[in-house]
């Protein structure tokens, strides 16, 4: 029967034969669970009892939950601190590294190395750095200079930036590499023309380099924003004694989801939180693409 098919029909058969298993996978492991998560968000369910319809109850509970608003704020603080800081740092490093030849590969390696580490492992390393005297490295160094020690992870104001620092640190190398690729994609003729016109370096930077880097900047901003909105590994591991503490000062949305679902077993409420996370990610990505692509 296969022999009687035309070449085009044979191609269709092959294509669907190749796609059968993957289509099944994406349906069962991606699309069905997405729908299921949305469905569960409208139900009450503690894993043991029966699933009952709750309507908008979970979302109303979320709206009235002070912890949720604290968590919501934290999540955006991670984003609003993390994204600009890592963007500026990685651009400055890439901009200068691009102008160097001597041991270029070695310097690049130093900046990229943290990207190859595991978030959990490095969260524990940084957690040790942040301990009080006589344990923590940072406070030991401060003590060496006679500076009073700083409470990093125990303080409600310092804990969030302290948790954010290793996340920024780990992602920096990736952004530097992407920025350098973007810088090198700019044709040299632009710079040569500027040189002939005798334009200063600052004008070259703001009038040529940055505008031409726009696609790279869009990519890095969207990529790192999504990363900071989904922060979890660092927070969880640096605050295992009191996840998201002190007093929820470091708790991001993903940690709240994990807690609600797998410590509180309130599946409906947790699912509603995941729907909120999904919406935030979608809206933030769309706004950034719109803002940075237009004008």
């Amino acid at each position, binding site marked *: 029967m296969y022999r009687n098919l035309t070449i085009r029909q044979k191609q269709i058969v092959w294509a669907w034969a190749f796609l059968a298993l993957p289509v099944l996978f994406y349906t069962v492991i991606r699309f069905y669970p997405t729908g299921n*998560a949305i469905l569960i968000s409208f139900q009450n369910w503690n894993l043991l009892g029966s699933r009952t319809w709750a309507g908008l109850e979970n979302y109303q509970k979320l709206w009235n939950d002070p912890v949720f608003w604290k968590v919501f704020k934290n999540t955006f603080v991670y984003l609003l601190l993390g994204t600009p800081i890592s963007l500026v740092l990685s651009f400055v490093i890439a901009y200068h590294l691009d102008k160097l030849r001597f041991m270029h590969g070695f310097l690049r390696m130093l900046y990229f190395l943290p990207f190859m580490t595991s978030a959990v492992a490095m969260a524990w390393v940084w957690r*040790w750095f942040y301990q009080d005297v006589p344990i923590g490295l940072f406070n030991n160094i401060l003590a060496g200079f006679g500076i009073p020690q700083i409470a990093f992870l125990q303080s409600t104001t310092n804990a969030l930036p302290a948790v954010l620092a290793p996340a920024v640190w780990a992602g920096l190398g990736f952004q530097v590499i992407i920025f350098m690729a973007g810088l090198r994609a700019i044709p040299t003729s632009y710079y040569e023309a500027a040189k002939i016109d005798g334009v200063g370096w600052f004008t070259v930077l703001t009038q040529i380099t940055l505008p031409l880097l726009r696609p790279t900047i869009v990519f890095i901003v969207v990529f790192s924003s999504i990363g900071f909105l989904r922060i979890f590994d660092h927070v969880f591991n640096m605050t295992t004694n009191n996840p998201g503490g002190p007093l929820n000062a470091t708790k991001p949305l993903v940690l709240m989801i994990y807690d609600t679902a797998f410590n509180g077993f309130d599946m409906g409420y947790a699912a509603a939180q995941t729907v909120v996370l999904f919406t935030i990610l979608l809206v933030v990505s769309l706004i950034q693409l719109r803002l940075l692509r237009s004008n």
Partner: protein
Amino acid sequence: MTDITPTADALLMPKSAPRTRNMGQIIRWLLLFIGGIIMVMPIAYMISTSLKWPHEVYNVNLIPDEPTIENYTYVLEDGRFYWWFVNSIIIATITTICNLLFDSLVGYTLCKFRFPGRTIVFIAILSTLMIPTEMLVIPWYLMSQSFGWLDSYWGIMFPGLMTAFGTFLMKQFFESVPDDFIEAARIDGLNELQIWWTVAMPLVKPALAALAIFVFLGNWTAFLWPLIVTNSVDMYTIPVGLSGFGDEADVAWELIMTGAAISTIPTLVVFLIFQRFIIRGVVMAGLKG
């Protein structure tokens, strides 16, 4: 074979860098060097502390006075890290192989075949990029519970066996495989599966290598889902195990640093060996993915 990915390599070559060594360049180099040293300090302190005796751990010196591998012997003799390491290797390897096969097969099909439903399948797969993993963990958990997948290798692996990112990346690279090659192979009487495997796949080796690195590293360091799906200590992966190990009462910091080093050193060694290659892969994935 023809190298079909010249862009990434070209983008790694310093182009505008002047050869002159004036004062400004020297200061620039020194500042970047100091910055780079600061960047690797956390890794250096992790390794240094894992080689220190307990009485020296809280000194700020980077080079241990009397280096010892006592901490490694202790941690590995305990046995748990050994199993977590093996689990992580098995899981990351199988997941990587699955991704290489399926992502490239799907990417190839979407790129080189014309068939009804092609656009829908492509958009459907692409749209899954917008769905965060965190939204799926609850349904995945319920699914694993009803099928008995909790606390098993399959349970840890199944969500990551194919990825939209990998599919999209491979599709982009198959674009540069000339259709003539495929036509020629068809005339030679190869079937479509053979054409994919023997003609198209060898032409996208650099992309396959980049994908392999990303998938392996992603699974080696994955935390949230393995934390949820595993219950028994024997089934933990390295990150889940390390997290629980660090949280045990009275565990010494040098032992935590040793555990962290055990989980980090393999990827660092792989990076140092294939450095140029991995950075090229990052650029390729960043530009095309």
